[in-house]
């Protein structure tokens, strides 16, 4: 039995000057083939102008169970949002 090709995560930059965005994953023996395969699998209809691939095993992800400790601290800081501050109408647009 042959060994399985590693899994790669694929990121594509769309036509509109946006960030590269995760679109899915695929198997390939190396980075070059991963790019070729990503072209065929994820950009058959002009979905992108640039492709990044990264080995899935190289990605470090936050654990879903740590969602609380990780994100809760920012929930109490509502003053980070501009709407926290009341500016009188007379001041005009700010």
């Amino acid at each position, binding site marked *: 039995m*042959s*060994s*399985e*090709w590693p*899994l790669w995560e694929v990121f594509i930059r769309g036509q509109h000057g946006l960030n590269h965005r995760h679109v*899915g*994953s*695929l*198997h390939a*023996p*190396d980075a070059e*083939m991963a790019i070729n395969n990503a072209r*065929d*699998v994820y950009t*058959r*209809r002009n979905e992108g102008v640039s492709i990044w691939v990264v080995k899935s095993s190289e990605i470090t*992800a936050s*654990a*879903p*169970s740590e969602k609380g400790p990780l994100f809760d601290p920012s929930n109490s800081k509502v003053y980070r949002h501009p709407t926290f501050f009341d500016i009188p109408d007379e001041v005009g647009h700010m």
Partner: protein
Amino acid sequence: MYAQMVKTDAARVRSLDEMDPVERAFQERIDAGQKIEPKEWMPEGYRKTLVRQISQHAHSEIVGQLPEGNWITRAPTLERKAILLAKVQDEAGHGLYLYCAAETLGISRDEMYAQLHSGKAKYSSIFNYPTLTWADIGAIGWLVDGAAIMNQVPLQRCSYGPYARAMVRICKEESFHQRQGYDVLMKMVKGTPAQKAMVQDALNRWWWPSLMMFGPSDDASVHSAQSMAWKIKQNSNDELRQKFVDQTVPQAKYLGLTVPDPDLKWNEEKGGYDFGEPDWEEFFNVIAGNGPCNAERLNARKKAWDDGAWFRDGLTAHAEKVSDRRTAAKIAAE
């Protein structure tokens, strides 16, 4: 459908009160319409059901290339050939999106392939019928992809994030498949009487197998009830079949074709068609492996996989060699 009769391991659907707190929290998230993502806690039954359904769906896309591949070299014009190639390439892509979605649930693609090749995993019954004429290619796009769209559109709202997102991509592309099929048939029915007869013959052979794609009535099925509670499934098989018939019959009329069902009749009261019952004995026979092309499809699939082994191994060996050479050059430079 592309996934037919998926089992859930459930003996019955349990109420929230009967669940332990972790499972109840999970079910409440689903009830609230939240998506479940990879690596989050999920009941083992939910995970297994998704692996079964997504892998069956993926296998269907991959095996589904074979009946159409039959006509790539025989397409009537260069343009039709290019279009059919693009469609078959899409099917390969759909298979890959789906295998990747299933892989987020802790099964590898090679394991799924092994299950397909050993006959343990199923694929849709529809792909075990032969493609005898060019009209069959039109009929497949129109009817088979049409039926697939019926099922896949609601799956975009499935509770499992990676599956739902794969479905969004797939649905965009399926529309091209259905239209190209109908376009093939529109052209043919304007042709010679022999060509028109060929289209009618294709409809006669593909109509009932297409209705069978939705699977037998599952109103009493505990597996369907459980899948619906988990929002893996959104509509009953009968609901989707009814929608498909209502949508397709007028399209057949436009082509000047007769739907091969003597019981087909507009029912004003329900605002839909009444129609006959597919031959479920035939369906179960095909599912059990005794359809007209089951052996041929599986053998073609296994042959492609086995014959490609040297190439996959070669690419792996090349990748290792290049990687070793880079490491050696780096050490030498230090």
